[in-house]
Each structure stands twice: as structure tokens, then as C-alpha cells.
């Protein structure tokens, strides 16, 4: 990492970037160090090559589908106002953060052999039975999670388009085609690389969804191999090397994406709600109707399937649940705060680099948040725990590592919401602030805060919802003292209580929905 020139103190964002890189390096080092007694070579055998090809393929396809549908949904939602629109936006947010295990069971409830679709087909007197296992299940689940995310991010960006552009469009009498080409497309194009990188990484490292809905070991991800090396074979060196391989692949792809499309963000300005000139076009009206119907058909049944858990709700509402909810809320709040703080620092550093015409450095800051997703949380946690070992107990380590690892997981999402807002603020008030000599926290409080406030609330809610539903590393460190709601879900599932697990799943989705509704209100899109 190149340091800022001159005598200037390093930007807090640079420190965050260094800290993240340091954490990752330390975790890898600790894993490899702990494995000295078990020399292991990473043979890229036939199986690994095969799942690599599969992973790349499914992640690429999932990404393209998610971005296309997400963009179409965002445009339709930007053009149309209809009753229940804000609920639809909240549903998008809730879908985007739904825990993997809940998504798996929802996909099966809707598209499974005995699911709703099968019942419908049977009622219609048709023969073929749906089979979601394999490509269909993986794609449906990934597009469900990521098209909704893409739609939210795109819509956010579209609603920040400069008012001057729209005035100009109205004066020039833009038709729907010109509106898309000159107004919407540049915005979508600007958001797409970062978003594509994020979605690709999410799909490339997807674990439970690919393993369970994939239908066989031929459809797996590197994450599965890392998990089994780490937990089953206890072969830390192999885990570290596989994790390194995953990181290298993701790094090259992310850099490629950014190198292919690197543009300075346009300068969005606050605007009053504007009636888009293309709203009245009948063909677009039809298109939007189709897109919204398609989006609804994908998202609503899978969300509705979680309602099956309602029957067992009375049985899960007890002291255990209250304690688990308290722990979950606390961890979610801490990790969301941490994620947002890191995102602001990194985005600030990127902005500062851009102002000094250091484009590549700025791009590095932009890439970093998504890249941390390539570090398998299991490997990161295991490595960090090895570093803490002997200094603190496992449970105490869990209390530190859980919010930290969750915050790192939520960072790229928070960054996607916050970085554009900081860019806006810099564009609007940057020169004045520089003239007045406002820097650091004072600048943040006086100049950036008014612009940042709303996206920050949105990012915070999103990060909290994401962390709220995370199971990941709780599997290792959960326990009587550290029992989150997802942990409780698995505990009930392990005791034959499928219905109670579904009820806890419903609570997780309901919490995500509430947080998302709040974020939507704050974003005003």
C-alpha cells in the first residue's frame, strides 16, 4: 500500500485498510504456523479443478442473471409509483439478507418435489415433477439473494441522479430511449463493476446453498473444501492454501473488473422527487409490469414460504429465545457500527486519493471491501483464534471475533451504500471545506454528516440485518454464553424440531424485513 505523499498523517482509511490486510495475513500465518507438524502439499487434483470450473461457472451465471434482473427491477421501481411500493422495497432488502439455511428450506418448500409448484402442477393434471436440486436450485437461490441486493443498490444510485440532468432531459424532450441512454445507463454502468464483483464473490464462496441445493459433490465450491480441511481433516495448512487460492482467484477477477471499467463517479446532487418523462410510454409500462411480475414471482413465494414457521411461533417464545435475541441484537449492533465505521474510513480515504488524482490508490480502496469476502470466515476466525489462544478463553475470544468477523462480512455492503454518499458530499462541499481548512473528524461532522446521515442509517440497518442472520462461525464459538438466534435455529433442527427451527427462521426474516423497511424510509428512494 502506498502512503500518502508529504508529511500528512495517514488517513484513517489507510489504517483500516492496513488493519484488514494485517488481520488476514496474521490469520493465514497463524494457520500455517500451527500446521508445522503436518506438512501438506496442495495438489490441485482432478476434483478440485472440477469444482473450480463449476464454481466459476455458477458464480458468473448467477452474477449476470442477478445484475440484469436487479437493474430491470430498479428501473421499473424508479419509474413506477404504486400502492405497497415501500413494502416491495422492504421485501427486497429482507430477501437480500435472508440466512442461507432459510433460503434453502424456502426453495424446497416452493420448488421441491412436494412443494407448492409441484402441488400446482399436480392440480393442473400435468405430469412432470419439479426437481430444484442442481443448477435450478442454486441459481434460484443466488438470484433471489443477489438480484434483490442489486435492485436495492441500483435504485439507490438512480434516485441520487443529479436534478440538473433531469431538467436538461425535460428541456431537450428526451424520449424513453434517450432517457435510458443518457441518464439511466451511465448510472447503472457506474455501479455495475463494484456490484458485479460483490455478487460474484458472494456466489463463488457460497457454502450451504451450493452444497445442499447442488445435489451432489460435483457441485461444490472451494469453501466446502476449505471447511472440510479445517474442520474434518484438521489440516490447517491445506485450509490456508485453499483459502489463499480462493483469495487469489477473487483478487484477479475483481481487479480485472475494475480495470475494465474504472470511472470517476459522477457528481450526484440532492433533488426533489421528479416525474420521469419516460413514465408515460406504453411500451415501457408493459415492460415494467412484466419485470415487476417476474421479480414478484421470484421473491414473494420464497419470502412467503417462511410463514410456514408461524404455526410453531408460540412454542419458541421463551427465555431461551429472549436471551438469544439479546445476544444477536448486541452482536448485530456492534458489527454494524464497526462495518459502517470501516466503510466510512475507507470511502473517505478513496475520496481523498481521488481528490489528489491518485486514481489507482482510490480504486484499491474501492476493491478492498469486496475482496475481504474472499477470505473464508472459517479460516479467518480459526487463524485469529490461534493468535488469541492462551491470552483469552474461547468464549471471550468468540465475543471479540464474532462481531469482528461479522463486521468484515458486512463491510462490502455498507461500503456500497456509503461510498457514493461521501462522493456526493465531497463534490458539493469538498472545495469549500478545503478552503476553510476543515479536515478529519471536524469535516466529517460539519460537511459530510448531513449528506451521510440517511445512507448511513440504511447501511447500518442492512449490515445489522446481515449480521443478525449469520450462522457461520457461531458454529465453532457458540455455546451457552454465546447463543445467537441462528444458533438456536440449528439447535432445534438438531433435536428433530423442524417446526420450531422454521419459526425461528421466520423471526429472523421478520427482523430483516423491519430493518429493511427502516432503511428504505431513510433512503427515500
Amino acid at each position: 500500500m502506498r502512503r500518502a505523499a508529504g508529511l500528512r498523517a495517514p488517513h484513517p482509511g489507510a489504517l483500516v485498510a492496513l488493519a484488514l490486510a494485517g488481520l488476514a495475513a496474521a490469520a493465514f500465518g497463524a494457520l500455517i504456523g500451527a500446521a508445522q507438524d503436518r506438512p501438506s502439499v496442495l495438489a490441485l487434483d482432478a476434483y478440485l479443478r472440477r469444482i473450480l470450473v463449476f464454481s466459476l461457472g455458477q458464480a458468473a451465471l448467477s452474477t449476470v442473471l442477478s445484475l440484469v434482473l436487479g437493474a430491470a427491477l430498479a428501473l421499473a421501481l424508479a419509474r413506477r409509483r404504486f400502492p405497497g411500493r415501500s413494502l416491495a422495497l422492504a421485501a427486497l432488502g429482507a430477501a437480500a439478507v435472508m440466512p442461507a439455511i432459510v433460503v434453502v428450506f424456502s426453495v424446497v418448500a416452493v420448488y421441491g418435489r412436494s412443494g407448492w409448484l409441484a402441488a400446482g402442477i399436480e392440480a393442473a393434471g400435468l405430469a412432470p415433477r419439479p426437481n430444484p436440486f442442481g443448477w435450478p436450485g442454486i441459481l434460484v437461490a443466488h438470484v433471489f439473494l443477489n438480484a434483490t441486493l442489486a435492485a436495492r443498490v441500483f435504485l439507490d444510485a438512480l434516485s441520487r441522479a443529479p436534478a440538473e440532468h433531469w431538467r436538461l432531459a425535460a428541456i431537450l424532450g428526451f424520449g424513453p430511449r434517450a432517457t435510458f441512454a443518457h441518464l439511466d445507463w451511465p448510472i447503472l454502468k457506474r455501479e455495475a463493476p463494484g456490484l458485479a464483483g460483490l455478487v460474484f464473490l458472494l456466489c463463488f464462496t457460497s457454502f450451504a446453498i451450493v452444497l445442499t441445493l447442488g445435489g451432489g459433490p460435483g457441485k461444490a465450491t472451494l469453501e466446502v473444501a476449505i471447511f472440510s480441511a479445517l474442520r474434518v481433516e484438521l489440516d490447517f495448512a491445506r485450509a490456508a492454501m485453499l483459502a489463499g487460492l480462493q483469495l487469489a482467484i477473487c483478487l484477479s477477477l475483481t481487479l480485472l473488473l475494475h480495470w475494465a471499467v474504472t470511472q470517476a463517479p459522477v457528481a450526484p446532487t440532492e433533488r426533489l422527487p421528479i416525474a420521469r418523462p419516460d413514465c408515460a410510454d406504453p411500451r415501457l409500462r408493459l415492460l415494467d409490469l412484466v419485470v415487476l411480475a417476474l421479480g414478484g414471482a421470484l421473491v414473494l413465494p420464497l419470502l412467503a414460504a417462511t410463514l410456514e414457521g408461524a404455526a410453531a411461533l408460540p412454542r419458541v417464545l421463551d427465555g431461551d429465545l429472549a436471551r438469544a435475541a439479546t445476544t444477536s441484537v448486541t452482536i448485530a449492533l456492534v458489527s454494524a457500527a464497526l462495518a459502517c465505521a470501516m466503510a466510512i474510513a475507507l470511502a473517505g480515504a478513496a475520496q481523498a486519493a481521488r481528490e489528489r488524482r491518485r486514481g489507482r490508490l482510490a480504486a484499491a480502496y474501492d476493491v478492498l471491501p469486496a475482496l475481504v469476502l474472499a477470505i473464508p470466515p472459517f479460516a479467518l476466525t480459526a487463524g485469529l483464534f490461534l493468535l488469541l489462544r492462551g491470552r483469552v478463553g474461547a468464549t471471550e475470544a468468540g465475543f471479540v471475533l464474532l462481531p469482528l468477523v461479522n463486521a468484515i462480512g458486512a463491510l462490502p455492503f455498507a461500503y456500497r451504500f456509503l461510498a457514493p454518499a461521501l462522493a456526493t458530499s465531497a463534490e458539493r462541499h469538498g472545495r469549500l471545506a478545503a478552503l476553510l481548512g476543515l479536515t478529519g473528524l471536524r469535516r466529517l461532522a460539519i460537511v459530510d454528516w448531513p449528506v451521510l446521515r440517511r445512507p448511513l442509517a440504511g447501511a447500518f440497518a442492512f449490515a445489522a440485518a446481515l449480521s443478525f442472520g449469520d450462522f457461520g462461525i457461531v458454529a465453532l464459538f457458540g455455546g451457552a454464553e454465546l447463543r445467537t438466534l441462528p444458533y438456536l435455529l440449528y439447535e432445534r433442527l438438531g433435536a428433530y424440531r423442524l417446526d420450531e427451527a422454521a419459526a425461528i427462521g421466520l423471526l429472523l426474516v421478520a427482523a430483516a424485513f423491519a430493518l429493511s423497511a427502516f432503511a428504505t424510509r431513510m433512503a427515500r428512494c
Partner: protein
Amino acid sequence: MHTPLRPSPAMRLALGLPVLAAALATPPTPAAAQERPTLTVYTYSSFVGRYGPGEAIAERFEAACGCDLEWVTADDAGSLLGRLRLEGASTRADVVLGLDMNLAAQARALDLFAPHGIAPGPLDMPVAWQDETFLPYDWGHLAFVYDTTRLETPPESLEALFTDPEGPSVVLQDPRTSAPGFGLLLWSSAVFGEGMADAWATLTPRVVTFTTGWSEAYGLFLEGEADMVLSYSTSPAYHRSVEDETRYEAARFAEGHYLHVEIAGATRTTDTPELARDFLRFMLDDGFQSLIPEGNWMYPARLPEGGLPESFAGLIEPGEAFLFDSDRVSAERRALIDAWLEATTR
């Protein structure tokens, strides 16, 4: 939760949030109570969850030992082992309860466990017990469970299940991530020997999916995604006892069934070795064993005085019981998984 939770200062500091501190803090204990020794037992989560036997076991043991029993949990047996590997000699565990025989060699290799030094006496298990490090506390047969209202004639042998192309669909667990999933691999190796890979290749088209763990597979089966699921011969007892539901049965296979034996051991690093040994002894007493059948849905390692509960009547009684030596399992693990990977991805 029976066991009081005591957050350490480090933990409160780390969180710095009064909410959680308040939620977890316990009122100060009197000095006398603080002198009670604490026995820390690691186990998997469902053992001490709302429906597991853990809480009752703690009450009974505490009544006799004049100590506090603290449960510390990880998600499942695999996580338990992973956590021990990470903690190494700094582990707080005095006793680890909930590993299975297939993990025994790897657990032993951690060099964390001490010989139990207990003569277990007669056990009610299909195999003789000789292990000097671990003692069993419950066991069950791996078995394929089916819904009698949907599958009228289940296969009568593992061979029929694997090789009949018209056979029922199954949902299985991935042997890389799941204990019963790996157990089936051993079972198939015991039955098919050299022909194991080919047998898997013929079964694969009828495998709906391989899940991460037992829970997901059993859930998918209950949702109606497959005709049969790999579980335990005792699973139908749960449905009979709790749900009053008799439609689920386990299929008895002619070749015999692989055993799933759950074990416990005391750590070498414990500061209360006597107490740990007392717990292992207690583990084979009626007070512990009587809680196992309908708490953990497995067979007790030693039948309690009252025998088995009613819900266990009518469960299948397999002929031969397979259980490979744990060193052999450990030595063959990689090769078996590689063979399975090759066969299922042909």
C-alpha cells in the same frame, strides 16, 4: 439455563455495552458458593438445548458432587473437535462429551485426552469396549428412515438400496462435513469392499442431495423431498413418543448396520481430574443413562433399571453391527472420501 453465566471482565470490556452485560451478569455469589469446584464439559448444542438431556444431567450430577457443572457447546461433533484442535492445551474443557468413534483417532491424536482409568463393567452394546481413553455413553445403528404411507416396500438390504436402479430416492449427508454421512461411507465399505465405488456410482442418480449435516437431511426428508433419509434406527421412537406419529420406520438391512457410538473422555489438562473421572463414572450410572433414550434419542450404553421406554419397543433389531477400529478409520478416511468423490462425480 440452569448453569449461571459468568461473563469475564475481558468479555464485558470487549463488548462495552451495558445491554448485554446486564443480560448476562449474575448476582454476586456468596463466598461459600465460589469455593465449589466447577467441572466444564464440552458437548454439542442439541445435547443441552431445550430438548436435550443436558440440564437434567447437570442437576443430578451437581446434587451428588458438590460442584457446579458448566456446559460449553459447539454446533456438532465436528465443530467440537475443530474447537479442541484450535484451543489445544489451553482448553478449559475438563470432559469432552459427544465425539463419535469415527473421530476418536483424530481426537486422540490431539494429545489432549488422558486415560480414563475406569473399568466400565458390563455394557449393553453390540460390541465389546476396550478403549482406554474414551468411554461410550450412547449408541445407535445408522439406518434409513422412511415414511410407510409413501414407501410401501423398502429395500431389504444395503445392496438392494444401492444397486437397484428403480429403488427409492434418498437424501444423504456429505461425508466430508457430517458424522452419519461418513458413517455410511464406512458402512458401504464394510458391505461392498472393493465394489464400493461402483455401488456409489449406481446409487448417485437416486440421491436427491448430500447435505451439510444430519439436520438438513432429516428436514428435507420430512418435507417430502426423498423416500428415505440416512438417520438412526432410533429416529422412529422420537415420532412415536413426541408426535404420537407411527408412520415413520427404519428399514432393517440384511447385511447388518454400522454403529454410531458417542463417546466422552477427560482431558489431560484438567485441573480437577478426580471430578472429571467422577463424571465419567456417573455417565454410566442410571441417573445419566435413564435420560438418554428420550433425551438424545439413542440407546443408552448401559440399560437403566427401568429398561427402555415404551417408544423404543418395536424398533428394528439389526443382525450384525459394524464398527471399524478407530485407527483404521483415521488411516482410510482420505482414501474413502476420494473414492466417494470419484464415484459420485463420474
